[in-house]
């Protein structure tokens, strides 16, 4: 029954849109109709006369642009807002565009077009005022503008907060009443107040917008349906081709959140957590988290630099201040709240257990004595750890989802735990797993910033999230990746992609190429600095000055003693913690390699010099040559010959070691591989490609080195 109903509905929709098309087609060939549109006299930035007394503003530009695309003419009639409303109501004018908020009352008298601008009521006070909340308004006077949504709002709360109101017919008078001190505050739409501040009116906004609503274009109810259709169609086109944004930005770059506007934030994310974050076939980062943060950035007007790295790496990068925030399917847990400030939850997941397709395990109780795979930092891991005693299983921890799945598929582990949408997505992508339990409610996901830092960003996220929820965009994002509730997951285009070996190469050629480039650049720069650093430290070890020898030995001891991974994380996350200055991942990577590889270089430089017969130095010194000259002319040329094989060896090691830097999110070859696998889950094939690429690189490097070595001997 239900099915038939949907079918009928769909048929109806098709008919309707066909009809609409016909109407449009008819109208475009008609001679241009002229409409009389009312607008407000002074409602900047939506409508106002500019210095040449020409009417401009968002509303004006918008209606003109729509008229142009839809082929009708507009005669604008600026009048007071109330006058305009009445003129349309009485049928004297055809429509009104005047920053008019869509309200249920107004809907009874007007038909509104698609909402075209989001707004909210804010309170503003004189610049020097101490008033920050409604409570402080008790007994005071508040200025309002007649007929605005803000005035309605103020009237609705005036009893509760005990203030008096005074109304004006235009904004300027209202502002003046506040700046002269007659009134202590005024209420108006957020963008209007912001524009006034921008124009130099001596007021300031306090608090967050109290309400939110939308502006709409209105015609008299039941009349001018054609005009509304034209308006909607035109608005859609303008939004699609960017004209809408241009118009808004022309007047209101400050319409966005001023605390974060035009600022750039570095946001860390996980490499492999589909459907929340993963690279699509074009190697562009997508997913619920990605789309969400981008939409919020757009909504709030800030810029984003997204850095995919391992989940743990991301946590550390945010803790150390390297990154401003992270969004990575991160559960809000009490432990994490000690280190991070979280946004309002944006996603409620639920942990499920998955087993191999043919496994007989279906219940937690069957896990006794078995191994279970989990991914670090996930809600699944927390859940598994919390029940492992009870059910008597052991856990194996992995850094990314793909490895975790592989562990189950190969049979090393019998089951894995992860968020329901994540596993569902993996199965959808062809991972041979089966979900056997119902989702267990766990902590919801939140966007995180370092505790006590980036409060503006967090606030912007919350505001943006609320906006997206209000506009329905958030549900659209979720549906895009998870399917509508109860429906199957949407089939995305890349399920049809060619996953053969050569297909994979072809498909990922550009990403692999970029990874290769990064690896090469990283290697060359690191080798350069490591060699310089190594030679200097090595020489410090042989000069006849005791404390320099000691320094050299200590440097070698420290940097050779630290695992590269530890050193990389220490430099990347440690230095910002100590200095408060961020350090780009590439620079951190080069420093890491320069120190680590340089320490090894220093050791064999020292050894190479020591291997030269000490008589050579004595003979040179006995001729009166200073130490430096003797070193340069006699000892080093002989020592270098001894060192050449070590150098070649070290270059190769450095090239390979660049792969470790994937941990700090550098998009080199290894990280590129991880990302590709996160998307297509073709671990074996992709790692084979990556391995071959490294081998080719190293072969080339060896050839080059051998050639250099031969030339040196000649």
């Amino acid at each position, binding site marked *: 029954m239900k099915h038939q109903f949907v079918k009928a509905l769909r048929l109806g929709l098709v008919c309707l849109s066909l009809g609409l098309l016909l109407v449009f087609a008819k109208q475009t060939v008609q001679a241009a109709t002229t409409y009389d549109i009312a607008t407000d006299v002074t409602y900047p930035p939506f409508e106002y006369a500019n210095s040449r007394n020409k009417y401009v503003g968002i509303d004006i530009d918008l209606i003109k642009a729509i008229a142009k695309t839809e082929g009708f003419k507009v005669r604008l009639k600026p009048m007071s807002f109330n006058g305009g409303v009445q003129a349309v109501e009485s049928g004297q004018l055809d429509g009104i565009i005047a920053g008019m908020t869509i309200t249920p009352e107004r809907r009874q008298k007007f038909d509104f077009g698609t909402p075209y601008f989001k707004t909210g009521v804010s309170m503003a006070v004189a610049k020097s005022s101490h008033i920050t909340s409604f409570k402080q308004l008790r007994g005071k006077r508040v200025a309002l503008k007649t007929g605005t949504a803000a005035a309605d709002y103020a009237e609705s709360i005036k009893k509760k907060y005990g203030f008096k109101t005074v109304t004006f017919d235009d904004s300027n008078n209202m502002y003046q009443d506040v700046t002269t001190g007659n009134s202590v505050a005024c209420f108006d739409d957020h963008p209007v107040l912001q524009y006034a501040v921008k124009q130099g009116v001596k007021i300031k906004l306090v608090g967050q917008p109290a309400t939110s609503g939308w502006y709409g274009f209105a015609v008299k109810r039941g009349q001018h349906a054609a005009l509304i259709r034209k308006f909607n169609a035109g608005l859609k086109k303008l939004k699609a081709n960017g004209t809408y944004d241009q118009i808004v930005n022309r007047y209101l770059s400050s319409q966005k959140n001023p605390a974060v506007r035009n600022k750039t934030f570095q946001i860390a994310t996980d490499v492999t957590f589909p459907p929340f974050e993963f690279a699509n076939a074009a190697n562009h980062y997508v997913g619920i988290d990605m789309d969400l943060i981008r939409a919020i950035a757009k909504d709030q007007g800030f810029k984003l630099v997204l850095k995919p790295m391992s989940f743990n790496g991301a946590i550390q990068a945010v803790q150390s201040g390297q990154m401003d925030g992270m969004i990575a399917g991160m559960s809000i847990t009490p432990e994490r709240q000690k280190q991070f400030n979280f946004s309002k939850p944006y996603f409620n997941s639920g942990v499920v257990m998955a087993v191999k397709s043919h496994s007989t395990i279906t219940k937690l109780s069957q896990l006794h004595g078995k191994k279970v795979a989990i991914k670090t930092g996930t809600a699944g891991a927390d859940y598994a750890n919390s029940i492992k005693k009870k059910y008597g299983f052991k856990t194996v921890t992995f850094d990314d989802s793909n490895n975790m799945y592989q562990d189950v598929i190969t049979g090393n582990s019998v089951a894995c735990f992860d968020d329901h949408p994540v596993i569902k997505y993996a199965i959808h992508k062809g991972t041979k797993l089966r979900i056997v339990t119902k989702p267990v409610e766990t902590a919801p996901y939140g966007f995180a910033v370092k505790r006590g830092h980036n409060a503006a960003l967090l606030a912007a996220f919350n505001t943006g999230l609320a906006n997206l929820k209000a506009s329905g965009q958030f549900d659209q994002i979720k549906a895009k990746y998870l399917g509508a509730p109860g429906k199957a997951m949407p089939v995305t285009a890349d399920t049809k992609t060619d996953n053969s070996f050569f297909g994979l190469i072809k498909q990922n050629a550009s990403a692999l190429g970029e990874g290769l480039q990064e690896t090469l650049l990283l290697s060359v720069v690191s080798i350069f600095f490591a060699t310089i650093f190594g030679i200097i430290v090595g020489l410090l070890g042989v000069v006849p000055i005791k404390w320099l020898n000691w320094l050299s030995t200590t440097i070698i001891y420290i940097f050779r003693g630290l695992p590269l991974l530890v050193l990389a994380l220490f430099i990347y996350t440690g230095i910002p913690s100590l200095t408060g200055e961020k350090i780009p991942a590439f620079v951190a990577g080069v420093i890491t390699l320069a120190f680590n590889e340089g320490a090894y270089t220093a050791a064999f430089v020292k050894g190479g010099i020591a291997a030269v017969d000490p008589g050579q130095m*004595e*003979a040179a010194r*006995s001729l009166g*040559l200073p130490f430096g000259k003797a070193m340069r*002319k006699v000892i080093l040329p002989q020592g270098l010959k001894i060192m050449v094989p070590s150098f070649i060896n070290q270059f190769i090691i450095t090239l390979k070691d660049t792969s470790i830097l994937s941990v700090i999110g550098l998009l080199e070859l290894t990280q590129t591989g991880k990302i590709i696998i996160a998307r297509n889950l073709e671990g074996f094939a992709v790692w084979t490609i990556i391995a071959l690429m490294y081998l080719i690189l190293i072969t080339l490097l060896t050839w080059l080195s051998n050639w250099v070595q031969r030339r040196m001997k000649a």
Partner: protein
Amino acid sequence: MVVIIGPSGSGKSTLLRTFNGLEVPTSGSVLIHGVDITKKKVDLNTVRRNVGMVFQHFNLFNNLTVGQNVMLAPVELQLKDKASAAKQAKELLTNVGLADKFDAHVQSLSGGQQQRVAIARALAVEPDIMLFDEPTSALDPEMVGDVLDVMKDMAKRGITMVVVTHEMGFAKEVADRVVFVDQGKIVEEGTPEQIFNHPKSQRLQDFLNKVLSV
């Protein structure tokens, strides 16, 4: 020419090496042209330019050719330009009988040849004093003569030389003064006649008995 003799481990080489600062004495002073070179402010590089040294194991620079070995110090110390340093090097090599080895690699030379190159190299900075640290000890017997001939030749030309050696015949023939060192101390010194024919101390007598009876 002063020849220093004495049993192995008696401190002959150490004594010699204090003369150009390769060893720093724990006490006492070393006077070269009246200057105490053990003093800190003395520029040893300048001292060494005036005090050439020839080593037991030659210590030729293995990364350079014979000619470059001889030219290195004069050029690097900016005593001569390359052309005149090369000219001088050829003359010095001719004097030691190795004119044809100018472009040869050091490793291709015999021990005796290497030691003569080493002498030429030391002479290239035109030192006032030459130190020889057992210059023939590492040589095959048939090579010893060539090197000693060169040294005799230098002695005739009046170059001040201090030689540590076990070649008693050479000492007797060429030395102006012979110094006998034992256990880190100068036990006896005098003309070759006094030392070899009229040794006073018991220790020198024992030493000579051992050395000459071989």
